[in-house]
């Protein structure tokens, strides 16, 4: 059982882990660990890489199940089947990748999944504002509640996450490297908040590499080493040395490779001068010699991760030069780097290393030299490849049952050896190895370290970039230490030891200059973070731009096309636009969720036929109802197939497009359906109220309804959440399937409304109508400013875009331009709109990187 007591805590631990073990194939991540948390204490968890910290946190937060041991929460034994369950039990985990939806506001994020509502189902903004203000005031966060999270700094975002946890009344909050990307002020603010959490009797589990922080904020510290708990001690009375000793201990040194000096390093292989990458690195200069292993140390946010990526062409430098053998190196892609003899082993093997569907041999040889030097040799020489594979297998001792085995069947250590082999077959003499022994068992780890030393002996030039300090000590001839984007030290062999490296890595750069702030890792691909004012304008410009374009086109059409600005023509244009806009609005909803519906054209035609057909039997009201129900049914079917069967949206709706149109053909047997009874149905199209055509009013009604739905109901906010950050939506307890099915049902209904309007307009329908309608619907959505990446929907823009499209078509008609040129225009317009959307997102992402 753990020793020590929390300050002012009750004798009962809130959370208690006993004998927790976790076994993975080949690796025992945790070995009989005891751990407990008292309410109101800050308990720090420390250990070097691979010690088991992350595994322990994952078990506590319900992401992993222990293979042995017992977890007790407030005295009761619990077993979390999922992270959702752990959350419901009151455990919150705050990680690097925040569970926030960037496109939603602070208030919306805090209450995501449990929004208070008024009677009709609309969001109760007043209540939300009241409660959110209260929480934020407590935390000392003065950010406007209506601010989109994407506009917040990383530090503020973290506090919003904490606010969310507080509002949910979590009892345990786990923070994993919370200060990694914060500046000094933000760190101080975070610590003040942690103090407040303590007062509220919340238990904080604090994981960090930074010794200084631990001593500032923690009450107790538990140290893990090699999956075992070394000790748990109160922080008071401990020194930094004590903690470091606990973390490293003697056992590890026995297994670590004893450094052996290689023959004196040769000439300069790589010369780096004043290398700068905006937002990550500043003024990095050092020389790399042939036959030497240069270690590279640094915490998250130090630039360590980015340095090798820049040398390999995955990041663009803004300043400085890199010279290889005296010539300036210019790499735009990894291919360029490989051609110049540089190869990088990526840090996260599972994400950007292995090719999961390919065999071991293919993974090994994918970067083989001839690929980059002899394009003529395109056919596979199976025998030669097998020989190459064999050679590599022997020299690295890769354990695989055959070369044709899928790479995913190998253990982590062997996969890493394959990656190393890949680097070697590229015949690059300069190797950039990132975390070479991550996720690797102890035995393989030593083998890999030995291999690295051997490479140096053979004249390779190696950079080993790692957060595993003992690893750096084992293999490096010299060691570069980065902190906050600057070089904080370049140690030679005599100076390389854990203490020096840790000390230099922890302290902010003291080169006499202003330390750079706001360092962060590369933003994850899914979410877009900080924006400057300029880019905010770009976002607004989306819908404003369409409006301006619309005005220009209308004016132009009035001038160039005589007869455009007549009452009749304007009415017709308005009607055409309304029909497209209604479905476009539905499509915008779907895109906001991150989905697509290619079947809306078919739904439109089928529902038009249903309406026309029903009119000969029943009165208009029932006919319309029948059509709407048809659309709803098809939409729901789409939604069910997509969510329950987990099929990709566009292919399902693509297939449905065909099915529905086939049904339309079958039902009509290729004949037209004319509306002869209840001709008053045509009033739906021809009628006017207050001088405005009825279709236009229908469109306005749909617009108002969908706007309310999207922005003022939990349903709409959930839709955007799913599109903006799906995992955050899941973590907030949103029922993704239910929302998906509902949204597609909604799209089906809007398509049906369009169908009814079409039937009313033409009064005679057949199954060949509406081809290409889905293209129009998507075009007006994207043109109107709704981004394909999801998370938000610009309904106003959709309406403007529909008006724009109809205006262009009308003008072209008047000018007697052949209809087919209109198809052409539509296609080009879509591509144009999509290209702008892409450019806009790239611009935003770029401006985020340069802000530092």
């Amino acid at each position, binding site marked *: 059982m753990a020793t020590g007591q929390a300050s002012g805590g009750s004798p009962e631990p809130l959370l208690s882990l006993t004998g927790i073990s976790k076994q993975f194939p080949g690796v025992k991540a945790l070995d009989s660990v005891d751990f407990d948390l008292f309410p109101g204490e800050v308990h720090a968890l420390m250990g070097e890489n691979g010690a088991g910290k*992350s595994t322990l946190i994952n078990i506590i937060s319900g992401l992993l199940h222990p293979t042995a041991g017992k977890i007790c929460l407030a005295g009761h034994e619990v077993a979390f089947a999922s992270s959702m369950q752990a959350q419901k039990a009151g455990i919150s985990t705050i990680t690097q990748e925040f569970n926030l939806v960037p496109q939603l506001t602070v208030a919306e994020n805090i209450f995501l999944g449990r929004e208070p509502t008024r009677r009709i189902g609309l969001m109760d903004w007043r209540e939300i504002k009241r409660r959110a203000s209260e929480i934020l005031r407590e935390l000392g966060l003065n950010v406007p509640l209506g601010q989109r999270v994407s506009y917040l700094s990383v530090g503020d975002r973290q506090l919003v996450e904490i606010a969310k946890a507080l509002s949910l009344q979590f009892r345990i909050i786990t923070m994993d490297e919370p200060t990694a990307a914060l500046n000094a002020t933000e760190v101080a603010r975070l610590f003040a908040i942690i103090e407040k959490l303590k007062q509220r009797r919340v238990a904080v589990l604090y994981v960090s590499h930074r010794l200084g922080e631990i001593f500032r904020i923690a009450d107790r510290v538990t140290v893990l080493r090699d999956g075992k708990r070394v000790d748990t001690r109160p922080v008071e009375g401990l020194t930094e040395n004590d903690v470091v000793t606990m973390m490293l201990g003697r056992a590890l040194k026995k297994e670590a490779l004893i450094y052996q000096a290689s023959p004196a390093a040769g000439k300069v292989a790589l010369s780096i001068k004043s290398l700068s990458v905006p937002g990550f690195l500043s003024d990095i200069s050092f020389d790399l010699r042939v036959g030497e292993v240069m270690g590279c140390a640094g915490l998250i946010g130090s630039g360590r991760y980015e340095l090798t990526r820049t040398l390999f062409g995955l990041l663009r430098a803004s300043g400085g030069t890199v010279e290889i053998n005296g010539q300036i190196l210019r790499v735009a892609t990894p291919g360029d780097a490989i051609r110049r003899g540089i190869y990088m082993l990526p840090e996260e093997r599972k994400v950007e290393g292995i090719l999961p569907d390919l065999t071991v041999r293919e993974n090994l040889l994918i970067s083989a030299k001839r690929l980059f030097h002899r394009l003529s040799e395109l056919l*596979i020489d199976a025998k030669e490849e097998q020989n190459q594979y064999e050679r590599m297998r022997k020299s690295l001792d890769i354990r695989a049952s055959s070369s044709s085995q899928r790479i995913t069947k190998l253990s982590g250590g062997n996969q890493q050896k394959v990656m190393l082999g890949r680097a070697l077959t590229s015949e690059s003499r300069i190797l950039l190895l990132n975390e070479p022994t991550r996720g690797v068992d102890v035995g393989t780890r030593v083998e890999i370290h030995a291999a690295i030393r051997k490479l140096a002996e053979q004249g390779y030039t190696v950079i080993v970039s790692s957060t595993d300090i003992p690893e750096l000590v084992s293999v490096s001839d010299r060691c570069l230490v980065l902190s906050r984007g600057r070089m904080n030290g370049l140690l030679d062999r005599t100076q390389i030891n854990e203490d020096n490296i840790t000390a230099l890595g922890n302290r902010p750069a003291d080169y006499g200059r202003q330390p750079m702030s706001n360092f962060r890792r590369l933003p994850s691909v899914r979410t877009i973070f900080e924006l400057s004012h300029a880019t905010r304008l770009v976002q607004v410009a989306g819908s404003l731009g369409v409006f301006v374009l619309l005005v220009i086109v209308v004016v132009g059409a009035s001038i160039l096309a005589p007869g455009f600005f007549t009452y009749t023509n304007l009415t017709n244009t308005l009607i055409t636009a309304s029909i497209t806009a209604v479905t476009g609005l539905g499509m915008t909803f779907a895109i906001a969720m991150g989905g697509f519906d290619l079947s809306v054209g078919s739904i439109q035609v089928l529902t038009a036929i249903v309406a026309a057909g029903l009119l000969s039997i029943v009165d208009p009201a029932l006919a319309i109802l029948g059509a709407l129900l048809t659309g709803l049914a098809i939409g729901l079917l789409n939604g069910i197939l997509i969510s329950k069967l987990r099929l990709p949206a566009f*292919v399902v709706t693509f297939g449905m497009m065909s099915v529905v149109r086939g049904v339309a053909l079958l039902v009509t047997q290729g004949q037209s359906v004319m509306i002869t009874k209840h001709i008053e149905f045509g009033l739906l199209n021809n009628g006017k109220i207050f001088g405005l055509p009825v279709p236009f009013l229908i469109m306005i009604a749909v617009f108002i309804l969908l706007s309310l739905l999207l922005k003022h109901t939990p349903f709409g906010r959930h839709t955007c959440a799913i599109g903006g950050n799906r995992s955050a939506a899941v973590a907030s307890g949103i029922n993704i399937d239910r929302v998906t099915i509902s949204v597609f049902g909604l799209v089906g209904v809007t398509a049906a409304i369009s169908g009814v309007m079409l039937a009313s307009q033409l009064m005679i329908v057949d199954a060949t109508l509406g081809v290409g309608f889905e293209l129009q619907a998507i075009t007006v959505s994207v043109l109107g400013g709704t981004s394909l990446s999801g998370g938000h929907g610009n309904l106003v823009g959709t309406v403007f875009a529909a008006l724009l499209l109809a205006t262009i078509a009308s003008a072209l008609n008047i000018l007697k331009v052949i209809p087919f040129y209109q198809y052409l225009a539509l296609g080009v317009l879509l591509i144009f709109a999509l290209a702008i959307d892409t450019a806009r997102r790239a611009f935003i992402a770029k401006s985020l990187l340069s802000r530092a």
Partner: protein
Amino acid sequence: MNLRQATSKGIGDHRSYGMAVISFLTRYYIQFLLILSVLILGALNPYFRSPANLQNILLQASFAGIGAAGMTLLIVSGAFDLSVAGLLGLCGVMICQLLPSLGTVLTILITLFLGVLLGLLNGLVVTKLRIPAFIATLGMMNIYLALAFIWTQGSRVISVSVPGFDTLGTGMFGALPVPFLVMILTYLVCYGILNGSIYGRCLRAVGSSEIAARTAGLPVDLIRILAFAIVGGCTALAGVFLTAELSSASAIMATGYELTVIAVVVIGGTSLKGGEGTLSGSFTGALFFAVISTALNILNVGAYWQYVVTGVFLISALGVQALRTYVLGAE
């Protein structure tokens, strides 16, 4: 340090006999379906059994089949091309315009060249403008259709009758229709590319994990663009034979082609995720579709059922794939 490294599996194959059976069934179901359907229909309907009908099936299969060969390669790389119907129409129209003046061989060469060129264009739009493939090609489809329409001034059908050219569509080589023979050749070539060449490995790599492929130094954009070019070429080739068989062309001659081709590939077993694909599956799938549509014709079921059937097959095939992924786990 995280879940990712934790779930790497050890060495070992299917976890149980049952799994192996499911794996086998879901992998080869299209071959079963084909054999089953041929046997049943042959038993039920004497006309179906006749050599004339069987040859017609082979002929009909070749049009979608040739296109499906290229599409398989593209889907393996993780992309889709919805523009093939318009592309084919455009090629067909061009053939009719050029044939009288330029003769068979030259016309065919130019058409193939056009197909590859349009494919390259598709590839450039997708990679350089970074627009998702299926929607970019949807837009391109409109453009190609429109161009074909403009060229023919409406969906006017153009007839063409040049003796040498016609036999391409209607001729036989032994017992096999010429287009079918070309289909076999196309599949052999594509098989060679996918499984026997470095490029094929690159395709699979890009489809398996684009990020990893990029980090391994592969020229991802180039690989993608070439795959689109291959689809363009295959589609143009199919267009040549379709035009020859019909002795005419129009802008909308291939309406629904993209659906049929993608359905053939999916039902053949190639996964939409990319990273692996089966050309023999697509080959079989093309035959299967031809069998089904012939059957629908013989049984006097309306032509309109084609749409429904194709769509249903596509969705069902997706369901089978989903089942395979779900049941077999991350194998």
